[in-house]
């Protein structure tokens, strides 16, 4: 019987395994060096914050794998021998496969900062990182000050985590506003303001220059691009992630930034596939990145590769872009594309609750008026509705008029849609006056 080996038990690898099991009775082995059982990486923050215990991050009970005849192997793959279809593990043992799925995920970026390997300097990605954080920052006596480097989603999560233990946080962000490379300035500004209300020392347009250690090789302070030295006990490096593909360097599998794959998630070796964070699309879909390190893209690639492996060759063809996050208390959802620097054909309309922490930004085409995307903060919107509006290129007027159809806020919430409609009409008037 065909043996499918999967390197990595994150959402991509696990989804592939589950769907292969649904479709076939192939032998399946999932390999992980991080944890025996699948857990939700996105939930690690809640373990540190005390909202959940680690076991709660595991979406399936432990009996699930044996019942579904999916073998779990703990081990670190050091070598992939594609000629012999064999994996070699750190402990010297081997495993042969018929099909190999690489779903090895990401690792935190380190950009060669001086002192980046000192004790007390860490990223936040893996279960081991979380355990390390408990050692480095168990409370505000052991960790009197933390510096976070990199204004992205992991950085703000780490800030929120540390604040629950009342650890003072200084947050170094390169852009003019938090996540300013992704969010239009008005949106980014709302989040920046919110971050400050949580007593974060937010340093915008400031980068890390150097990390200084003490005589024990522990971090003592950092020096910023503005020349300031800040004492600290923890440095969180959260300047993005990149594919964890170092173990493939000496194999014949082609890698660039990640493992290079075609539309069918096939690598240059016929029986080897790559999915999730570690895959690099040779022909990315639409405006998407070649490397997508998002929860749901991992899941979708897993679904697709399972089809291909089970005899129904299927291309990875993600639909309208979407994503979500939570910045402290502000929920964020996005559907379609709203660019931080609008494309030349792109117009934005924004509306914000006065003194509230709710905001919506809609992007539409200047000439055709077709809806391109939406960013929403503190207002929940329906994925299905926006997915169809965007793919059907609905007119912005239509979207604004029917916005309440896309409402996904809990019952009894104050509706802002009539205010949004009014504001949009007023903006149209002023636009016309300008012309």
């Amino acid at each position: 019987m065909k043996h499918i080996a999967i390197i990595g038990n994150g959402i991509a690898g696990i989804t592939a395994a589950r769907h292969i099991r649904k479709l076939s009775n192939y032998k399946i082995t999932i390999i992980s060096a991080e944890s025996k059982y699948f857990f939700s990486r996105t939930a690690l923050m809640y373990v540190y914050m005390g909202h959940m215990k680690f076991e709660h991050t595991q979406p399936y009970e432990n009996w699930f794998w044996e019942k579904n005849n999916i073998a779990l192997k703990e081990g670190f793959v050091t070598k992939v021998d594609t000629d012999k279809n064999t994996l070699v593990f750190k402990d010297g043992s081997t495993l042969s496969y018929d099909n190999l799925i690489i779903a090895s995920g990401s690792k935190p970026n380190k950009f060669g900062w001086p002192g980046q390997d000192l004790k007390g300097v860490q990223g936040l990605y893996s279960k081991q990182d979380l355990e390390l954080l408990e050692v480095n920052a168990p409370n505000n006596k052991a960790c009197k000050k933390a510096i976070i480097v990199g204004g992205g989603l992991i950085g703000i999560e780490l800030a929120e985590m540390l604040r629950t233990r009342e650890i003072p946080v200084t947050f170094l962000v390169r852009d003019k506003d938090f996540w300013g490379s992704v969010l239009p300035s008005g949106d980014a500004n709302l989040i920046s303001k919110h971050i400050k209300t949580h007593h974060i020392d937010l340093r915008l347009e400031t980068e890390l220059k150097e990390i200084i250690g003490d005589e024990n090789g522990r971090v003592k302070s950092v020096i910023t691009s503005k020349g300031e030295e800040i004492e600290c006990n923890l440095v969180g490096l959260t300047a993005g992630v990149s594919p964890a593909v170092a173990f493939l360097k000496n194999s014949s599998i082609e890698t660039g930034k990640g493992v290079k794959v075609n539309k069918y998630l096939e690598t240059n070796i016929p029986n080897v596939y790559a999915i999730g964070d570690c895959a690099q699309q040779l022909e990315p879909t639409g405006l998407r990145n070649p490397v997508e390190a998002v929860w749901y893209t991992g899941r979708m690639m897993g679904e697709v590769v399972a089809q291909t492996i089970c005899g129904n060759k299927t291309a990875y063809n993600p639909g309208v872009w979407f994503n979500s996050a939570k910045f402290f208390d502000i929920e964020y959802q996005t559907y379609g594309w709203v660019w931080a620097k609008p494309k030349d054909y792109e117009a934005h309309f924004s509306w914000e609750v006065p003194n509230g922490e709710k905001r919506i930004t809609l992007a539409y085409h200047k000439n055709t008026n077709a809806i391109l995307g939406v960013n929403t903060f503190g207002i929940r919107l329906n994925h299905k509705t926006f997915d169809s509006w965007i793919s059907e290129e609905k007119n912005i007027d239509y979207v604004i008029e029917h916005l309440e159809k896309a409402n996904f806020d809990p019952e009894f919430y104050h509706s802002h849609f009539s205010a949004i409609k009014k504001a949009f009409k007023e903006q149209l008037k002023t636009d016309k006056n300008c012309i």
Partner: protein
Amino acid sequence: MNTTVQRNMSLAGEPPVALNFLQKLAVIVGMFGLGVLLLAIFNVNFPNKTLWLTLSLSSLIFGVLLFSYGAYNNKHAGIKNDAVWFKSISSRGFLAWLLGIALTGFYIVLYFYPQYLGLRTEGSNVGLIGLFDPLSTLLSGNPASQWFVYGTLYTVAILAFGIKFLWKYRHNRYEVLRTISVMFFQLSFAFIIPELMARLNNSEAYNIPYYDLKNIWPLSYYNFDQYRVDGFISSGDIGLALLIFGIVSILIITPILTYFYGKRWYCSWVCGCGGLAETSGDSFRHLSDKSLKAWKIERWLVHSVLVFSVLMTVAVVHSYLNYDASKYWLNKDAFLISVAVFLGVLFAVIWYFKRDELQKDAQYGAIGYLGIILGLIAIHYFSGSNIFIFNPETLRKTYSFFIGSIFSGVIGTGFYPILGNRVWCRFGCPMAAILGLQQRLFSKFRITTNGGQCISCGNCSTYCEMGIDVRAYAQKGENIIRASCVGCGICSAVCPRGVLKLENESPKGRINSDAVLLGNDVDLLDLIKQNK
């Protein structure tokens, strides 16, 4: 891995586990209120009962409010679950066990040894119950009983912790309105109205039993006991109206409201048990067991209790019918036949319309239970014996002891800090079983998932007080339609990605168990079907 270990061995606690100054002060104030009650139990005779009772109850309320102020005042509106699994009280630690034992002990004394609380059948009450005499006299004109003491403390708990909950979830209007609703129904329907109604009984014409109008049979398993029915019937139009209301509640009002809103209209908006669980029990909601095994136990247990309660009630009603045939137009035979026909028709309707939605074990269970009930009724009917297989009084006493006292009180509430706040509602409440059956099969209510946004974090499952593995549905894009869901809305509140929404929409397409998550332009559903 245990990430909750406090590595510095400090016992003082650290933020956010440690209490701040206001909270410490609040604990002292609350303890004073509790201390007065304790002293009363040990028969300290307070000179001015009205004053001391007022002092005690206000200290309790003020203590809870001050504690909440200390906890939430400096925090943003938003989810407040920091350190829930680090705190001893909310993570089955030492304090949780201490509280569990204290509560359990209180329930045992309350149910079985009220004399230790100072209840006296002759002469005036002493001790704790005596302390409540002035308040009881003020409301109903009668001296207090252990149930009055319990009812007062219960109401105080729902009000005080209700305000705490309102503060905690002030950003969420669904939670705010729902909590105001349970506070209102407890204070008025469960507490003040029945006490005032008791004043009617001062007149010879009235003999109305204590009636909490929102406490519907079979939750109030005793509602059709002989003494109550006699009381209703002998109390003129008001009494008769109350009796009819009791029957209409379960046969007409409940099905209509549950069809439109799901069982939440009752379980998390009106019910007293639910009210206590949602307010005082809120700090323990995450302790419910989410395993598949627990779900299996839940289904068998809660439906067995329902069958037990139906049998018991039929037997009890049957036992007192007929002894005065002229008084009740309904005689034993007519009653049994109508019950059998009703249950038979109900079963046939479910079977005809919804058979496909029942799991195999549910089908077996349904057939089995119907067989038992109809069999027993038939045996009686054809044998013509006076005894309903079991002695109805024994049945009633057994039910009252095991279900009414031990399950709902001692375990249901006493074990809040260990098993979670909805043990009774989930595993034992026959009313919840009926509503759940209907919610699953004939209702517009569902929890919708938002396309492909779920990140499987598990907050929803962790904070589901009913032990529903919400994430298991959300991460597949399925709607959540579970018999046990009480619609508290917390899963939707704690979701960091805005994935869950409680809704009453058209029943069509409500159950979408073959849903495929949105986002992939490949029609995965077709592919899966093709490949099967």
